[in-house]
């Protein structure tokens, strides 16, 4: 009895710990992404309030309150996966089209954001596995790829939008992951109550 309670609490505790850790990483990612955006604007001599148009690059709906935790996690994880793919392609294209000069703070910050995003993906993947064990397939980002014939300015705007996308989803991850422990506890409670009801019906 005690063992079961301990195991149960341990699993829930681990989830809570992982969620908290993921939320902390998301916060750090958000902070670092903010810096990256600032460095980008500074390098490109762009105003901080300039707009690049509407529309999201990541083709995953924002996790709404209608979805349960598992679906929310799936959406978040999928979106972060697309963000990572976009980010890697953006940085690759940037190096290809605009690179060759001395590396500076901007390049280091971009690398940091990419690594932090991978770390966050690891955490959300663990949470998703803990939820139902399903695995999110790596999305095909070809449709998200910018046309190679586009101008450099459009490439820059696209890179900026990718960074903004990472920033957006990191913010979304913070909100969602911070609310995740309470939701998990409620669901665990509901699950336990349902089991008790089922057992009583059998009797």
């Amino acid at each position, binding site marked *: 009895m005690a063992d079961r309670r301990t195991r149960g609490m341990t699993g829930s505790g681990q989830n809570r710990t992982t969620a908290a850790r993921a939320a902390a990483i998301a916060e750090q990612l958000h902070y670092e992404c903010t810096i990256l955006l600032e460095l980008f604007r500074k*390098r490109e001599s*762009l105003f901080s309030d300039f*707009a690049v148009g509407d529309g999201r690059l990541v083709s995953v709906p924002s996790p709404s309150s209608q979805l349960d935790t598992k679906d929310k996690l799936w959406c978040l994880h999928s979106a972060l996966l697309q963000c990572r793919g976009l980010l890697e392609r953006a940085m690759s294209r940037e190096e290809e089209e605009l690179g*060759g000069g*001395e590396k500076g703070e901007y390049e280091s910050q971009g690398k940091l954001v990419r690594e932090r995003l991978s770390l966050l993906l690891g955490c959300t993947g663990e949470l998703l596995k803990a939820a139902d064990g399903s695995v999110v397939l790596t999305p095909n980002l070809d449709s998200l790829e910018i046309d190679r014939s586009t101008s450099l300015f459009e490439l820059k705007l696209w890179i900026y939008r990718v960074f903004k996308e990472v920033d957006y989803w990191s913010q979304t991850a913070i909100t969602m992951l911070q609310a995740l422990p309470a939701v998990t506890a409620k669901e665990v409670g509901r699950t336990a109550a349902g089991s008790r009801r089922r057992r009583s019906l059998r009797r």
Partner: protein
Amino acid sequence: MPCQSFTSCPSLNARPLRFLFVLLALSVIHTHGKDAPVVPQQVNLSPNMKTQQLSISWLSGAATTFDLWIQRTELSETIFDDTVTADQVNGRYQWNWTSAEPLECTSLSVQLRSRDGQTTSEWSETQILQGMDFPSNKGSYMYPVDSVVNVGTNTTFCCIVGERRLFGSIYYKVVLMNATRLSRRSYAITRVNQEPSGMTGTNVFCNDYQNTILTGVVVFVGYPPLPSNLVCETHDLKSAVCRWNAGRDTHLNGNQRRTNYTLNGRKCEVASQSLNWTVCSLDQWDGNWTLVAKNPLGTYSLTDSAELRHRVRPVAPISLVSISHAWNATVLWQWMYKSYDSLALICQVELTAYGQTTNRTFLGVGLHSAVLLGLHPDEVYSVRVCCGAQQNFGKWGNWSEAHTFRTRMDIPETLDMWVWMDGEDTGRVMWKPLTRKQSHGLITGYEVTLWSPEKNIQHNKILPPSNFTLPFNFSQDDYTSGVKIIASITARNGAGVSLPASVVIPLHMANIEPPFVSRAVFLDGGFPLSWQSNTNASCGYVVEWRDASCLQDCSVDWTKVPAENTTISLRSGNFEQGVRYTFTLYSCSSKAPELMHHWQGYMQEMVPSRSVPHLSTNQQDSDIQLSWDEIPLVNRRGFLLGYNIYRNNGSQLTLLANVSDPGSRSYTVRGLPLDSYKFTVKAYNSAGEDTGTTASITLKSVTDWLILEILASLGTMTCFLVFVTFICYKKRNWVKKAFYPDIPEPKLAGDWSRPQGTMDVKPSPHSMVRIVEEPEWDSSKEALVAIPEEEEDEEGQGIGDGPVDADEPMSLRYYNQVIDDRPIRPRFPDSSASSASSLDSARTDVTYTGIQTSGSSLTFQLQTQGSSGGQQPQTEPPVSFAGGEGSYRPQMQHGNVGHSPGPAQPQCFQEPQSTTGGSFSCYQPQCSWNLDSPVEAGGSGGRALSLGSPTSIASTQFLLPEGGTEDSGDGKGHGSSSATSWFHNLLTSTKP
């Protein structure tokens, strides 16, 4: 239809007409061909968007000049209207026009006409070059796209606003530009004299009125490539490695804009690029190389050529190892290429230790090792190697990786030791710590040995490495004075023990008179000292110095000077300002160090740190004497030059005097009126004065001082008298015994009761008195000389058996004391014979005790003198007596001394009166007083009767009344009266 008419109406009659018509037409055409140029036909526009060049070609007649008219189609703005000369190519005329703005910005309309002088043809049909702002193209665009231009050029950018968007602004980087409208949707700006762009180009973008970016372009403003210094060399004696300097930054980044290099036509993959140097490798040594650098803005070529042996640059040695010893090491390395075995190499070895780097050069064929000499034991060295070709040396190869090794330890160097004596038999053995270079390894300890070769006594002491001094004291040791004692010391490390350093301990140095102390002046960062050479200084000299004001546990430093030197500039980082240092020179020999000279000096003098202590003022009449104590040495901080005496006038100081003698301790300010004064004394040295000590005084009148002195003297005397009185009162018993002892009763040997005849008295010719002294009197009465009775008897002059105080200058008073207990009856010596008999008997039976007082001494002497004239036995019965003079006559006295100038003779032996008057204070010898006449004597009452007559031999009372003394008319007797009476009373009152 005409053809149809032509073909449908054939007629023979019409043929001649038709022919004429054709001829007419041809002639008209021919006529017009000479008069009006042909209108250009088949005008064709061929744009080059990248170069913004429009190639216009057309067909025309023989005309070679044409009028060209280009205008923006929408707004019909003419942008070109000029006459051009076109060349004919392949039967078509062609002319290129370069637009200032991108050709995509808006549609252009082009028309031509032929010109022949002033004659022109009609305008050709309008040809329109379609811009990107045509209505069906509804998006937003900006041109030129991703252009690359040279620094300093002018570029026009245009923005085509999308349909239903309102133009806002165009920014070049962050600069808002003035836009020109080209068409309904197209706006243009021109940036002149552009600066180099950043790493990712310069952004030019177009916003709508809501400041939302509509579109934009990136322009790269940079330079064409300009490489330099192409050098090709070989490392492996086979391949070529070419290096060149990339030159200035082209500001063109990205794969499509960066500079591409080809070397001898082969694309050069840049192996590395550091510090703007680019390296490219070729597998074979071509001997001639051509480098072509190309970017969108231009191309540049470089060439180089050389023989292989002239361009050998060895690679860096690898796998460095070392074989180290204490004082040298061998460094070995390997080469990457076997071909180096036959290559004559020159290598330099960079050795780094103690933070210092030295280079050593070695030569050899296929060199792969080097022996490094002159190293230090137990030291860490870092070494790296690079080499070059000896022949046709061009450049050093790369440095190898650094290799670090530590040399082995060796025994330490001999210590620098010294002995400092702080007493005759005490002192310290001191030694300086060894530096890293001297210790040759970690010092584990020191061993100090004190030994006497003469006594063959040896004491050893092991000390830890943190100790650098060892005190000794030979005063309680086995060493005896005069023995030569040698102190020696060795240092120990992991490699062994150092050679010993020895010094003969200079015992009893304190007994040596210190030589003259000279002054040492600090010059040029040191104390220059010089001395006369000493032939005994076989091993040089030692200069020792310390803080002169230090008294205990002083820090002593020293330096050793070779024997051939007699000067030194003593430098030390420990010298401090304001500290007096004592420098002592010793000569070094096989014996104990010999003290040669003393110096004292300051590194820099400072003003004294404290003022003169204990400044006091003293009035001397109208003068004031200022006196002070010496400033302690530690506070002088310089050689004192004297003192300045100031008088304080309010807050100002007035210099009164300058005492230039630093040893002076007082100064007198003379002739001051009565007033209050304040004085300040300041000691000074070469650095200045101290803060000064102030003392004040108020001058008082001299009369007041005199009165005070008199009162003080009187008071002192009074106190003294009171004290003496008190002491005498307290010690009255002692005083009485000392000065007024009890008169002993006469000792009567025979039976005085039986009738006797006339007592024969044999007066002593010297009137000597036999005295019986009490035992306690013996020691205190030093001046009285006891005359043995036997001697007196032999001489026939002795009159008693007691000692006689012969030379006592004080007066003597004698008291009879009867030893016999029997009642004493009065004796009546009625004749001289009886008197003589009495005297004779008294010689054995009666004793007298003398008491001296200062006042009666003279009297005794006079009496003695009188008796010295010879006393004759008295033959007359002493019925009465008169003060006989000149002799002691207890029984009789002459009445008047003046009347008997001859030798005094006893006149009588007076009948003892029973305490006549009862006031005798003492027994007065016969000559103690003088009576001028019997009347006078009788007038004296009882006193006259009592004179010279002992009343009772059993009485302890003085036989003579006190009043007799007082009434004595002779001044000699009166001189002692007051004191003696006072003492008498005092003593009497204490007698039980």
